[in-house]
């Protein structure tokens, strides 16, 4: 039952069955990961751009830490967020543990360093090109950061996709802070983990295939949106 052809057929069957439970899981996965990536971009892109633009003592150390945090283990992030959001933790009163919001927080924490580090790399090259112009125009740091983010928007969308890839694929953080609760916090990866632990490897693989398809679909959507925007709204 775990040969590629039957896995593919099973996956297709699941997708076309219109199973509301599956669609709920897919929708939650997208909602959690897309929101987390959007939050990460709001924080990470200006942060990355600032590190590309502003020089200050200790900048090298900050960049090194950021680069190291790109590989932050999801399970560690999950554990930290769990301890923060636990009823016995500092933010326990908010009652966020085992909710999609907790999963969004955990994934945003996981993805922000990645987005900031990649954005810094990509914008540092751009900044090298613009540096003299910016200084000739006597731009302040904020204007420089805004201009870099806007002018680098197409390469930054790839950065955001890298973040999305990390978010949608991770299981370690969401399973701890979400609890893999059916209909509430079960996403694709935790569902796969559950089916694996039930020994239903075929179903787990089929879900995995759907997850990959989902990631591909989001990538294609963003990249073609990109191309359309490049063509139509170049302003």
């Amino acid at each position, binding site marked *: 039952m775990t040969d590629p052809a039957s896995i593919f057929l099973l996956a297709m069957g699941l997708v076309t069955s219109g199973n509301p439970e599956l669609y709920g899981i897919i929708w939650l996965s997208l909602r959690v990961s897309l929101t987390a990536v*959007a*939050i990460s971009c709001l924080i990470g892109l200006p942060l990355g751009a600032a590190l590309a633009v502003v020089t200050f003592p200790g900048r090298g150390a900050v960049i090194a830490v950021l680069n190291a945090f790109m590989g932050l283990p999801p399970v560690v992030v999950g554990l930290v967020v769990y301890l923060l959001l636990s*009823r016995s933790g500092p933010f326990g009163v908010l009652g966020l543990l085992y909710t999609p919001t907790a999963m969004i927080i955990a994934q945003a924490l996981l993805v922000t360093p990645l987005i900031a580090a990649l954005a810094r790399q990509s914008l540092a090259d751009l900044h090298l090109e613009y540096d003299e112009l910016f200084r000739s125009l006597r731009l302040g740091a904020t204007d420089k950061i805004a201009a870099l983010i806007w002018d680098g928007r197409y390469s930054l969308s790839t950065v955001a996709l890298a973040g999305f890839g990390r978010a949608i694929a991770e299981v370690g953080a969401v399973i701890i802070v979400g609890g893999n609760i059916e209909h509430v916090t079960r996403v694709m990866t935790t569902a796969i983990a559950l089916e694996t*632990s039930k*020994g239903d490897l075929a179903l787990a693989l089929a879900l995995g295939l759907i997850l990959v398809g989902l990631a591909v679909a989001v990538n294609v959507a963003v990249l073609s949106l990109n191309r359309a925007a490049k063509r139509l709204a170049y302003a």
Partner: protein
Amino acid sequence: MRLTSIAATALVALATASTAAHAQDPFIILQSTTSTENSGLFKHILPIFKAKTGIDVRVVAVGTGQALKNGAKGDGDVVLVHTKAAEEKFVADGFGVKRIEVMYNDYVIVGPDSDPAKVAGSKDAVAAMKKIADAKAPFASRGDDSGTHKAELDLWAPAGVDVKAASGDWYRSTGSGMGQTLNTASGMNAYALADRGTWISFKNRGSLKIVVEGDAKLFNQYGVMLVNPAKHPHVKAKEGQAFIDWLVGADGQNAVRSFKIEGEQLFFPNAATGELKKAG
């Protein structure tokens, strides 16, 4: 700037959707074990409870040790686990209100068809464990402080086997849930101790089969406790107690009894009687 505003709108929409999703029915969080979740028991009984009371039970399935720790921290309203001693300590420490027995099933020792330790058909779990150790046949342990893990250690002790010393050799501590451990056992043709519920619903058996069952020592009792609202005031005591009352009452017990996989009953309710039936 158009892209920015589209992105901002999308973000707001997503964020709103996230908050809207959990402002609905009353719900409680049940800290429970992988064995009950993986077997499919909750999927069978919880909709019945919800239909009756409108209360949504959100199950977090971890090992017994983890479930009790999470409960002690207040990250749950009700705990349903299966290690009597640890449960009694949980109540004694003031984290739980009262321990009530709900149901039982039993553990089984599963092993490869080839049965290198020659234990198949035995009814003496401790002797079988000793034989496995003597043969240095691979054994996959949960190793995660779960109820099943504790039950397994309770079999090694009287057998006089020091599994710590054998760890990494023939004794493989997987540090994972029941299903994962069975996957490992199936992959390396190892023996393992499993609860019958998970075993029956487990699909990736490979060459594994039950080799030992029916020993009184393999009895597996589940207990339920309300997390103490005196310790954690946010605990939904009313809804939590409603769930417990239902579970140990006639309706809940019947629901448990009616859960079957391929005609086989996985859990045996014993709340009303409190009787300690022999397993098997």
